[in-house]
């Protein structure tokens, strides 16, 4: 089945950025569609069950799902169109300049075609993986990014490890050190190659110090042992240039290695429409109004740049929603 649909603004991604963008474009009078590849709205917040969200916006300590729910309720009562379990695979620019875009989206019913005046990318970010860090040895099972471990425990209810080492001290890694400990796993230590932690000081306190989990600064994992499953890792101290120091290698027996080594905006789809994306940071080229270098294409949330607080993610979604409607009025695509 395939039918044609026409919208002023199509938002890709139903996390906090996309929800805020859709709501704001709707309030400015737009016909809005939101497309989300998962079967529920909320984005990554669904798995961030800890509290600390919304301190800036609501002056309250909400958990991730609670923060998301406020936007989801507003979104649903506004009656904005959404397509869940739908993956945007292809976007093309219509031939006349400023005449909008054609989007192909795959869902269980088949391929849908959507015509839209403007597009807002709210596709979030992904985590750096083992491929992007330099570790010797095999690649057995038992190596997870912190976000994957978070999804396994908080959404699927499965424990990925019994005893693990965490590489990198990003906030998600710190949060997961506590979460794993609460659920009965042993976190042998968190190892950070830099001389200071990369996560927030409050997370060092409430996730590591509170549970006596050691944080080893200027240390890294240099090797993984194990054929089918991780059996041990090798830890080394590093010098100020981050090179492993000879004679400092130590073997730690464990069945898992969890990586928390950074986030990169998710922008492959934006690149395919011609948006210039910085190779090193993953960030799209954007003007002040969050419009990319392709007129009519906007970015917000962690697809724009990695924000450390969700409150700012929502604000950037709202700004993109407003800008998109202003653009459509300017080019005469919206009355």
């Amino acid at each position, binding site marked *: 089945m395939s039918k044609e649909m026409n919208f002023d603004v199509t938002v890709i991604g139903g996390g906090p950025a996309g929800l805020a963008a859709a709501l704001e474009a709707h309030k400015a009078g737009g016909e809005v569609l939101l497309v989300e590849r998962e*079967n529920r709205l909320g984005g990554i917040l*669904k798995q961030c*069950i*800890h*509290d*600390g969200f919304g*301190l800036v916006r609501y002056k309250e*300590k909400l*958990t991730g*799902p*609670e923060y998301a*729910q406020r936007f989801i309720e507003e979104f649903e009562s506004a009656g904005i169109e959404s397509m869940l379990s739908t993956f945007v695979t292809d976007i093309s620019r219509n031939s006349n300049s400023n005449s909008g875009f054609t989007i192909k989206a795959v869902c269980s019913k088949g391929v849908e075609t959507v015509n839209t005046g403007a597009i807002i990318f709210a596709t979030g970010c992904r985590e750096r993986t083992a491929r992007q860090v330099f570790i010797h040895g095999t690649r057995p099972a038992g190596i997870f990014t912190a976000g994957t471990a978070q999804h396994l*425990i*908080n*959404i*699927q*209810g499965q424990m990925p490890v019994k005893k693990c080492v965490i590489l990198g001290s990003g906030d998600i890694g710190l949060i997961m050190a506590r*979460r794993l400990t*609460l*659920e009965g796993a042993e976190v042998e230590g968190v190892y950070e190659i830099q001389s200071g932690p990369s996560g*927030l*000081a*409050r997370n*060092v*306190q*409430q996730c590591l*110090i*509170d549970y006596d989990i050691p944080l080893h600064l200027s240390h890294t994992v240099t090797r993984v042992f194990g054929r089918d499953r991780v059996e041990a890792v090798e830890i080394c101290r590093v010098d100020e240039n981050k090179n492993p120091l000879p004679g400092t290698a130590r073997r730690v027996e464990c069945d898992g290695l969890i990586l928390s080594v950074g986030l990169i905006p998710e922008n492959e789809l934006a690149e395919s429409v011609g948006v210039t994306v910085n190779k090193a940071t993953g960030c799209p080229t954007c003007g002040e109004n969050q419009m990319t270098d392709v007129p009519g294409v906007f970015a917000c949330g962690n697809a724009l740049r990695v924000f450390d*607080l969700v409150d700012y993610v929502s604000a950037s979604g709202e700004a993109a929603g407003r800008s998109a409607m202003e653009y459509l009025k300017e080019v005469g695509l919206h009355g």
Partner: protein
Amino acid sequence: MDRREKEMICIVCPNGCRMTAQIDEQANIEVTGNKCVRGKEFAMREMTNPVRGLSTTVRTDSPELPVLPVRLSAEIPKARIFDVMKEINNIRVTGPVKQGTVLARNLLGTGADLVATADMPHQTEK
């Protein structure tokens, strides 16, 4: 016993102030390094009865949503966290549940209730 001193990071807001708290024989507490009064209150509690909030999940009987996120309605003494975790992991919930629903009251006498932080739709949602 003379003065006892403790260094800590305030967890009340994202600023994460580094603070030092000193307690003397008369149980007078002096705090330095805090940027606001909430930090001082936090440090006083840390020296007497440290408390923490707790967010976790509970098992459900739904194969589509095997665990449901939950939190405690109030902070509890830090020393009780693992007992309370064990208690929560014995609970099993049946849907539908609305966000905000109390799933268990006064866990292990701590005074804290267990509250759902997400909706659990009725079974057989596509």
